[in-house]
């Protein structure tokens, strides 16, 4: 509730800033500064013709598809890196290095491989988030308290039982926060991919706003991108995270 009031104040201040700077003092041209009323107007227009819904839906589907593949690849490589000393020593630094590469850097490569297609965007999403997930998987397993493994071993746990009954549940809280971070990387990478290609989506709607010199549309799409990111984080990841921590008495 306090947050909501703060947001209202922020928007009012923004509107006031526009009135003073653009309407009253004419310091800036109207096309150079977005305005809450203008953004709201554009929001209604893009909603009524279905553009915004279609763009959001497409982006979300692409994001989820890329993310799911990234999770599978990330968990698999994370487990391998964790399990084999050789990979831990040699592959992990490489993965860490690749992870520092901003996802937009994958775009040219991706376009050369896949052309201006959905696959090109998916590739950027996967490359943008899979490696952060593998690093978190490896760290999550490393941070398990050794006593859990010792207790299970002296109760006769086999290697498979160890993974299923100890390593997986013990690393779960950290795993979830790694997956959450992976999602935020995926969502950012998605936008990097979408602004470079022409498939219908939020990124393309953003670029369309630029092409039309419509700064309110640009602002609107940015707000939607942030909102979707927050909603996914709060409604999915944070809920799961809290439930797990509460069950273990950690929250």
């Amino acid at each position, binding site marked *: 509730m306090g947050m909501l009031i703060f947001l209202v104040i922020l928007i009012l201040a923004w509107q006031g800033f526009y009135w003073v700077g653009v309407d009253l003092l004419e310091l800036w041209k109207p096309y150079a500064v977005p305005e809450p009323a203008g953004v709201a107007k554009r929001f209604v227009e893009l909603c009524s013709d279905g553009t915004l819904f279609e763009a959001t839906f497409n982006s979300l589907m692409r994001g989820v598809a890329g993310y799911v593949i990234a999770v599978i690849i990330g968990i698999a490589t994370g487990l391998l890196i964790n399990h084999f000393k050789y990979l831990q020593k040699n592959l992990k630094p490489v993965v860490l290095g690749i992870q520092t590469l901003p996802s937009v850097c994958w775009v040219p490569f991706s376009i050369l491989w896949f052309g201006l297609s959905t696959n090109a965007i998916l590739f950027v999403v996967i490359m943008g988030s899979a490696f952060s997930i593998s690093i978190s998987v490896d760290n999550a397993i490393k941070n398990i308290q050794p*006593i*859990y493994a*010792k*207790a*299970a*071993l*002296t*109760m*006769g*746990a*086999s290697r498979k*039982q160890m993974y299923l*009954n*100890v390593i997986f*549940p*013990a690393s*779960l809280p950290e795993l979830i926060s790694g997956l959450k971070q992976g999602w935020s990387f995926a969502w950012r990478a998605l936008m990097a991919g979408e602004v470079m290609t022409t498939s219908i989506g939020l990124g393309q709607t953003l670029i369309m706003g630029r092409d039309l010199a419509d700064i309110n549309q640009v602002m609107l799409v940015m707000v939607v991108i942030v909102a979707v990111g927050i909603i996914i984080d709060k409604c999915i990841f944070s809920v799961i995270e809290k439930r797990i921590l509460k*069950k*273990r*008495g*950690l929250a």
Partner: protein
Amino acid sequence: MSLVIKGLNKHFENSEKATLNEIDLEIESGEFVCIVGASGCGKSTLLNLVAGLEKPTGGKILLDGEEVNGPGADRTVMFQEHGLFPWLNVIENVKFGMKLAGVPKEEQEKVAMHYLEMVHLQDYKDYPIHQISGGMRQRTALARALTMNSKVLLMDEPFSALDKQTSNRLREELQRIWMETKKTILFITHSVEEAVYLGDRVVALSPDTGRIASIITIDIPRPRHVYSPEFVELRHEIMEQVRGEAV
């Protein structure tokens, strides 16, 4: 004959002298043996070796004639820090080992309830671990260890992280449970009183040489009482020995 330790050596790479030196010990089936020694004398290392969590640099450990080669369910450990799984509740923790062994569900429930009653936790069976006290956690860990029906139960200072009162209470209960179940137990402690109270034999380790300083048979009949004159006298005597070794 149950557990045989023969010429056991353990020398950690980064330490100058051997932690354990030529340890020879035989533990009969149904016997309660306590290892005492000052901190750093290698008593926990000895337990880890028997558990198979560490490898010896020399010598052998035989359980019913078979050489110990890594951890296993026939040598369950009860740790100082309970080692319970926070994602499971009390009874799920107690069932854990049986679940690994593939014991049928109804049997798991029956056995778990039996031991939970033995440690007086039947009313707390559905509690999450973080909602029960330290003493109750150790009771849960004890119940879990008992369900394993191990050939030897290894206990690594299981009561020393608890407050004195809880710790005394739990050792009384362990004495009662041992009298009921006659499990073979190897019990590590730094408390001579605890060792004399619980053990059939007390093995004192010397911190300087990493050898067994003395093995004392405790023939005070059970249930023992810490204020009985014979107990006080024996405790005093062993304390002198351990202290003498430590100086």
